[in-house]
């Protein structure tokens, strides 16, 4: 069982490794950039997926796509994620009526990011302390 605190710490630590000079210093600040200025969504998304890879210890590949939301009130700050387990080549996010390979989450807050990490870990059979908020 992974705790919420572990996920938050891992997100911050992972972000530190990705962050460049002059860019936001913390993951929470990166989230602010994404929600306030509409930029840096790719870094937020990459941090989430790298955190999943680190916490799971699995060999994973992913694709993330920060999207332009046409209705920010109904669905703010959407990011599409595709997750693949490299050894089996299986797309773990495949689903829905149209068999879409991606899932889309609204990532505007730290809670959203923690929930997304929890969701992806649950796809890998790893439980997280709190229920993911989907």
């Amino acid at each position, binding site marked *: 069982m992974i705790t919420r605190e572990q996920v938050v710490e891992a997100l911050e630590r992972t972000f530190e490794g990705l962050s460049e000079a002059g860019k936001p210093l913390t993951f929470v600040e990166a989230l602010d950039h994404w929600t306030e200025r509409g930029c840096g969504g790719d870094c937020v998304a990459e941090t989430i997926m790298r955190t999943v890879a680190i916490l799971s210890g699995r060999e994973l*590949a992913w*694709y993330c796509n920060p999207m332009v939301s046409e209705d920010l009130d109904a669905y703010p700050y959407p990011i599409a994620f*595709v997750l*693949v387990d*490299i050894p089996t080549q*299986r*797309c773990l996010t*495949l689903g829905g009526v149209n068999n879409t*390979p991606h899932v889309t989450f609204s990532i505007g807050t730290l809670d959203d990011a923690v929930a997304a990490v929890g969701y992806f870990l649950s796809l890998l059979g790893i439980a997280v302390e709190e229920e993911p908020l989907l």
Partner: protein
Amino acid sequence: MVTREQIKKTLDEIYDAEYGDGDGEAKFADGIAFWLQNGEYPFDVIETIVDAVYGLSGRPRNALGWHAEPLRDEWSYTGEIAFVLVDAESGRCLTLQRSDRPETEACISVALPITTEEEAVDAVAYFLRLLGVPVEGLEGAAS
């Protein structure tokens, strides 16, 4: 064996039926040119390519999982589209590219230039090859 000419004809037929009047006037190449000139989301270009792959591979609708994203630089679309293709039956990601070098991460999308109809034909041929459909000129190519 699917030929390049068949792919081109299929792209034009689908584009004309879906986005034109079905009278043969609307050309897929015009759709690509319109995208690049006007910078609007190339929904029609992506859907035409996906539909051509379905039509020429004989796979039933929804047998494939697609994610497609036109790539942008700071100002505009670059003319490349990133695709992720999954075989929905097996769940296998067909566009996964693993690297032999440990410092290089695996990639699950392919970015293909779609600035001309010829490049779109190349893209369809590439996806058909991933699905095991023989394409003229690509017979010996490794998948």
